[in-house]
């Protein structure tokens, strides 16, 4: 097969470019510790809210500077909605859903996971800067999807008091939006059993 010279040049350069991309990505994983989520544990959406760990969502300090944030993503709010940690903390997020597929993206971080009923999504980030980091749901989860958000509040070392390492849950299970407005989530939509009636 005759492949003209110019095309050969282009093909060679393209292959080098694609290979270079692969190498840079390998570096991002090895050197920077940026990884993709993988299988950890499974949960039963029907019972997860009454079994550990999701029966007690919130943030706990597991060792010095290391935190574990246990979060529930459901229609249409996160529990807890606000997570407060001191600057420099490494937070491991474990998130699960008792209803439909949700997404979790934490702005200004690389945390970006799908929350799929039956699976626990685990990811990690070290918060090196003080500030507020919005958490958004980025997968369509029903007509309230555009109201589903939370935040990680990272406070300076000098602000650390008994408010640090806590998850604030600003609503009852029948949910408050971040602005404080109550929303009514119909019972049927929070059911995880049965097919269509």
């Amino acid at each position, binding site marked *: 097969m005759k492949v*003209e010279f*110019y095309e050969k*040049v*282009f093909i060679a*350069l*393209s292959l080098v*470019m694609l290979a270079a*991309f692969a190498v*840079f990505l390998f570096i*991002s994983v090895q050197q*920077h*510790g*940026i990884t993709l989520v993988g299988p950890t544990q499974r949960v039963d959406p029907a019972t997860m809210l009454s079994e550990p760990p999701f029966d007690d969502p919130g943030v706990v300090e597991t060792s010095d500077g290391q935190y574990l944030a246990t979060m529930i993503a459901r229609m249409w709010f996160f529990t807890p909605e606000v997570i407060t940690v001191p600057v420099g903390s490494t937070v491991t997020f474990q998130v699960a859903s008792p209803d439909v597929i949700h997404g979790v993206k934490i702005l*200004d*971080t*690389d945390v970006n996971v799908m929350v799929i009923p039956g699976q626990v999504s685990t990811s990690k980030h070290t918060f090196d800067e003080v500030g507020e980091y919005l958490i958004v749901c980025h997968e369509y989860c029903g007509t309230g999807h555009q109201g589903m958000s939370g935040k990680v509040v990272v406070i300076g070392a000098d602000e650390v008091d008994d408010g640090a390492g806590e998850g604030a849950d600003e609503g009852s299970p029948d949910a408050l939006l971040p602005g404080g407005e109550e929303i009514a989530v119909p019972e049927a939509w929070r059911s995880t059993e049965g097919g269509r009636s």
Partner: protein
Amino acid sequence: MADNDESDVTDVAHDADSHETEENPRGTLLLMLLFLILIVAMWGYMYAIMIGRG
């Protein structure tokens, strides 16, 4: 083509080797190189964002 010296509109050299040129896509190679550069630039930009947020 025997009338190269009469063509004042088209490039004389072009007439002489038009068959060659058709098979040597020089403009294409230039644009494809620019395309590869654009890919590298955009990819690199997004890669830098990812590293910066990590």
